[in-house]
């Protein structure tokens, strides 16, 4: 079953330059999709459109086979049952970890919070404030807060970019395990091609607002004919290697 369908989606912020242009793709239930591309390629705009935080110029979006965005209507973010983990986590600084996780819950808050804390292996942290946590811990709390509301579709904006290499590797495996365990679908943005290869089922490559390639991971690198794409992917790979070299 298709959890997400996007058709001819375009977005401009100034009415002139398109940050997204005629995007078409769909995602099956339970799949993990990585969106890769350079800075400014439109990755974040794409997931903000899916979440209902931006309004497109044209095109439509269906979530769970229901039309949520088109020229005439926009379903508000709170009615889409979509979860989004922001790049900087957006934890409410005035609330504790427990209150953050319980924020979107209507009933059974205590049990649900405990369950989520167990899931992210942070039992005993419920009373702490976000400022008292490390980057990796904040990331996990943001994920738990989003998962607590049981979204149909999970969106993650550069979830691993603020973490060091060891933590990053552990955490992406952890995220993959949680998402697969819960059977939900996930789209995550990354500029690191290794993130995509490591945990995604399929990869979308965005360049200057257009989807250049969308394939399952095992077919993504085979028979690439587009010179531009090859060059861009090589750049993404070599940058990642360079960072790894620098880190020893």
């Amino acid at each position, binding site marked *: 079953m298709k959890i997400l369908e996007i058709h001819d989606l375009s977005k401009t912020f100034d009415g002139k330059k398109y940050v997204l242009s005629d995007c078409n793709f769909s995602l099956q239930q339970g799949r993990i999709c990585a969106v890769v591309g350079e800075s400014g390629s439109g990755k974040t705009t794409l997931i903000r459109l899916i979440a209902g*935080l931006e*309004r497109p110029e044209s095109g439509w979006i269906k979530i769970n086979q229901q039309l949520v965005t088109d*020229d005439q209507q926009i379903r508000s*973010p709170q009615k889409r049952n979509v979860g*989004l983990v922001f790049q900087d986590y957006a934890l409410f600084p005035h609330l504790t970890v427990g209150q953050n996780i319980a924020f*979107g819950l209507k009933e059974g808050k205590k049990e649900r919070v405990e369950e989520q804390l167990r899931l992210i292996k942070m039992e005993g942290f419920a009373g702490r404030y976000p400022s008292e946590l490390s980057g990796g811990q904040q990331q996990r709390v943001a994920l738990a807060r989003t998962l607590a509301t049981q979204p149909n579709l999970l969106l993650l904006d550069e979830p691993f970019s603020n973490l060091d290499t060891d933590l990053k590797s552990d955490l992406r495996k952890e995220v993959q395990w949680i998402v697969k365990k819960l059977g939900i679908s996930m789209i995550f943005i990354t500029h690191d091609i290794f993130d995509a290869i490591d945990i995604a089922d399929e990869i979308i490559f965005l360049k200057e607002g257009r989807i250049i390639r969308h394939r399952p991971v095992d077919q993504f690198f085979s028979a690439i004919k587009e010179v531009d794409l090859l060059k861009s992917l090589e750049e993404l790979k070599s940058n990642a290697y360079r960072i790894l070299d620098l880190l020893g």
Partner: protein
Amino acid sequence: MPIKINHFRRDFNQWSLLLVAIGLFISIPLFSIALNLFDGAGEMWEHIVAYFLLDYIFNSVVLIIGTGLLSSTIGVSTAWIVSKYDFTGRRLLEWLLFLPLAIPSYILAYAYVGLLGNGGTLINGLNWLGISIKKIELMNLYGLIWVLSLSLFPYIYAGTRTLFQSLPTTIRDTAFLLGASSRRYFFSVALPLALPALIGGLFLVFMEVLNDYGAAKYYGINTFTTGIFRTWTALEDLPSAIYLSGLLVVLVLGLISLSRWLRGRKSYTVKLDTAPSRQSVRVPLTGYKRLFYPLIVALPVLFGFLLPLAQLLYWAMLTYPSIFRLRLLWTALQSFGVAIAAALLIVLTALAIIYCARWNNIRGLRSFARLSTIGYVIPGAIIGIGVISSSQTIIDFFSRNFQLQIGYLFYGSSIVLVYAYVFRFLAVAYNPIEANTLKVGKKLSEASYLLGMGRLKTLVKVDLPLLRSTLISALLLVFIDVLKELPLTLILKPYDLDTLAVTAYAYADDELVAESSLPALLLILLIGGLIIVLNNRKLVRDENTGNTRPV
């Protein structure tokens, strides 16, 4: 259907409508003035042009230039000394330099006549010391410049002080390593970097000078604001008063353009450093500077606060038995009540506009938010005239079409006055709240929406708790401004409402200047107390941006 119409229908929501409605409702006085200009001038206009207009223009321009120069000199020099040098009593003086703002300029003007006028307290003191002097003539243009500068220099002091204190040591070290002397560092590096803050403060000074009514009236100086009052009340010619207001708006727009032009591209991207460890260490003073520099800092406090305060206290002691009545406490209570009601309404309106603009999805409509904050650059007298003229239009409309007499609703209650305060002081609350909502960012609200919360619930549960400190600060800032306000209150207050500012003015206007001291002192006590609270909460300054809006 064309796609743009579809998008408009999709994106226009209740918040867009509310934003437009609030923006238009608040700007009614401005539209009223603009529309009335087309009705032509009144019958006294030729008389005003022939005998007064040149005086209004000349005096207002000289006041602006003179007060601008003197207040900049005082503000920048004191800010530089307290930021860069260490001396005994610096901390106290650094804080006392804000307090001249607690004395409204019209009260300072009365106090100076008591100090330096014929048989004045200071003159008597000088005579006692053997210095024979009869009086120092202050009731002229130069005296007014002196009084306004002493009252308004903290606007410049606050902004430039924050900037001087936040300049990173690396900038100073680089200048010195390149061979610059201390003098050259100040004039070639520090002062140019402080220019945006200086111009920002200067703009506030200009607006306050144009807004002043009490001091200019008492010293007998014809300015635009006193002219508007005279034309309306003595000459009973509202259309000509509106014409004068139109000219004053042109002058204000000219000053806005001037300040923008002066700033030009000077919004340097120097990263201000607020970490105490990386800020310049204050240099201890040596030689003649040990006496001279603290004196430069102490004199504005002495002349702008301590001496006038002493004069007011002296007068209060003399007039206390005849002036202190239960009525005065009732006036204080009324002042407090009106100011707190207006401050609450203004903060709520500012919040409503900021969040309606955020929740509205049509970019073009956001200019309505800015439109509603324009009142801060419009002198109170103009707003008063605009409100009166638009109220009259509404009253006439109801009387003509429905035979309903609703005049008492407008003029018999404080509704119109509070509405005018909202128009005049909305920017005072809007600017800091908006700056802080931008600082908090949209992501936390968006996270809340995605967790299933609606906009109003998100506002209550996420935004307001994070803005609490800013809201309190905005509330206090507006409260102080409303307490001090004179021209607007004089025009629009209902018959049975008296504020401390109006009572002090009324005594002085009746040549009972000593009797004005007790209400004036009560006012200063209230404002001074709040300034102390604000300074202690460190809410007066925004050290990150260098933008300071002193109380």
